[in-house]
């Protein structure tokens, strides 16, 4: 009997990447990572009950502060914890051998894993945004109801307009997008660390340390430069540190949104571009580390 015919190879296959990405998303969902969304829901609902003694503007500010802050923390945690175990689990279970024994380039395998995590973060942040918007809408309606009962008709229209202007501002959308990009950046960094780390715990600890450094290093750098005479060598060193460890404070637009400030389009695009650039750079670095890894 004749053996099967030789098969043509496709050098780059979006369908292979999509298969790995969707499998990764399914794996993470079946790990029931979304249970944490219950905690988020309880947090923002619980928070809204303690706000009744504040003015409506203060209520909306606190609600936005707590919700967006919790979104930022939860998506970052999800990014780090979900990504940290992906590669080590595949290596330990030897599933990686079976996958890479198929005509799957390591570039596509890693990209599929990253896209799976980004898809998970997108689903998580979408669900959290829906919950947040729902709670905000309920508070808005409650404030309108109170105003309707207590204010004179002549002042009511202005008061309702003021309430609505305080709740749903256009800045909410870019703020949530930047929160997503910050978490995605942390996920890409965690993927890079996991390509050469010896264990998931090590990856998680280093990711947490880098997260802290990312929030502290701009302040520390400015303070050092202001209080010391820095030579060229020191300045280059500090510049390298600021490149390797991303300035995560640049992704914090929550304070502006809470204060009711508009986020300029230029600032949003610059921040988004920074996030995307870091994701791409970390992914490429992860690929170079992984391509040389002996299995």
């Amino acid at each position: 009997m004749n053996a099967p015919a030789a098969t043509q190879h496709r050098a780059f296959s979006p369908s292979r990447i999509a298969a790995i990405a969707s499998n990764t998303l399914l794996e993470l969902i079946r790990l029931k990572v979304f249970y944490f969304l219950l905690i988020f829901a309880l947090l923002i609902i619980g928070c809204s009950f303690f706000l009744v003694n504040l003015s409506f503007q203060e209520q909306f500010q606190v609600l936005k502060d707590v919700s967006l802050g919790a979104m930022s923390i939860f998506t970052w945690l999800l990014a780090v914890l979900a990504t940290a175990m992906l590669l080590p689990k595949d290596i330990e279970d030897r599933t990686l051998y079976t996958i890479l024994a198929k005509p799957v380039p390591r570039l596509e395998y890693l990209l599929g894993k990253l896209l799976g995590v980004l898809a998970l973060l997108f689903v998580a942040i979408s669900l959290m945004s829906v919950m947040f918007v729902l709670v905000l809408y309920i508070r808005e309606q409650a404030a309108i109801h109170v105003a309707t009962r207590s204010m004179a008709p002549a002042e009511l229209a202005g008061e309702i307009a003021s309430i609505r202007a305080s709740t749903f501002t256009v800045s909410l959308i870019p703020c949530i997008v930047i929160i997503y990009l910050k978490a995605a950046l942390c996920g890409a960094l965690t993927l890079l660390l996991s390509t050469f780390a010896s264990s998931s715990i090590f990856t998680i600890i280093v990711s947490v340390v880098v997260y802290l450094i990312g929030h502290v290093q701009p302040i520390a750098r400015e303070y050092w430069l202001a209080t010391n005479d820095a030579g060229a060598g020191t300045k280059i060193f500090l510049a390298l540190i600021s490149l390797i460890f991303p300035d995560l404070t640049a992704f914090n637009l929550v304070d502006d949104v809470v204060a009711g400030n508009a986020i300029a389009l230029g600032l949003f695009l610059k921040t988004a571009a920074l996030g995307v650039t870091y994701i791409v750079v970390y992914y490429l670095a992860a690929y170079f580390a992984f391509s040389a890894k002996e299995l």
Partner: protein
Amino acid sequence: MSTPAISIENLTKEFPIPFKRERVTAVRDLSLRVEPGQVYGLLGPNGSGKSTTMKIVLGLVSPTRGRTEIFGRDSTRVESREDVGFLPENPYFYKFLTGAETLHFFGKLCGLSGKKLRDRTKELLALVRLEDAAHRRIGGYSKGMLQRIGLAQAMIQEPRLLVLDEPTAGVDPAGSREIRDLILDFKKRGITVLLCSHLLGQVQEICDRIGILHQGLLVREGRLDELISIENQTELILENASPELLADLQAAVAKSTARVVEQRRPQTTLERYFLEVTSDEKKVKGDP
């Protein structure tokens, strides 16, 4: 001469030892060819370099020196794996996927999709007799079922070469026989098989050629029947031979330069005997 299924030329693999200058040599100057359609047994004790050789052939590990090719394609290149199906030792798949989903996933990795993938999945599940367990999660599969789904995923893209690492390890005799029969079926279909196994009895039944590795060196290589036959002895099996005929034969041998080394009744194998006993339902129910 046709393109060999596997060509290994002067393959050496050294692993560095952390914080030391010395290196561990897992494979030393190995050269061998596996022709298309053969079942080739790569044997050796633990640590002899079989797994390292297999991983290099599959492109999972890069060689220190030498070259490996699959059907003429350098095995360090991804395209060489278009023609390869691999079943690792103690296969592990994503526990959260069902059997059918597992085949779907690996099929997509090999470029299959749509109806072709669905039909192929159905065909392979029938081949490995897992249709009833197709929608059960892999986490609930027995060892034998894992090996069978592993064989199915190795076959998903109709490869020309199968690399099987201990395909029957830990499997009961009935399951082991099924897997062995599948391998013989693959051979009939013209698929080349590279087999690593410690179960030498099975290797003897299936393989055409073998290579024996020891401490990274290929110490023996060739056709199985030539390697294990005892050159100056002949086996003659008779049925319904009378004692007189046996006596005449003994007398004829005594007159020549040959000698009778052993005279005994041939035996069935313990495996065949076990399968006869355990597959006989009447006996299990207590019927004679």
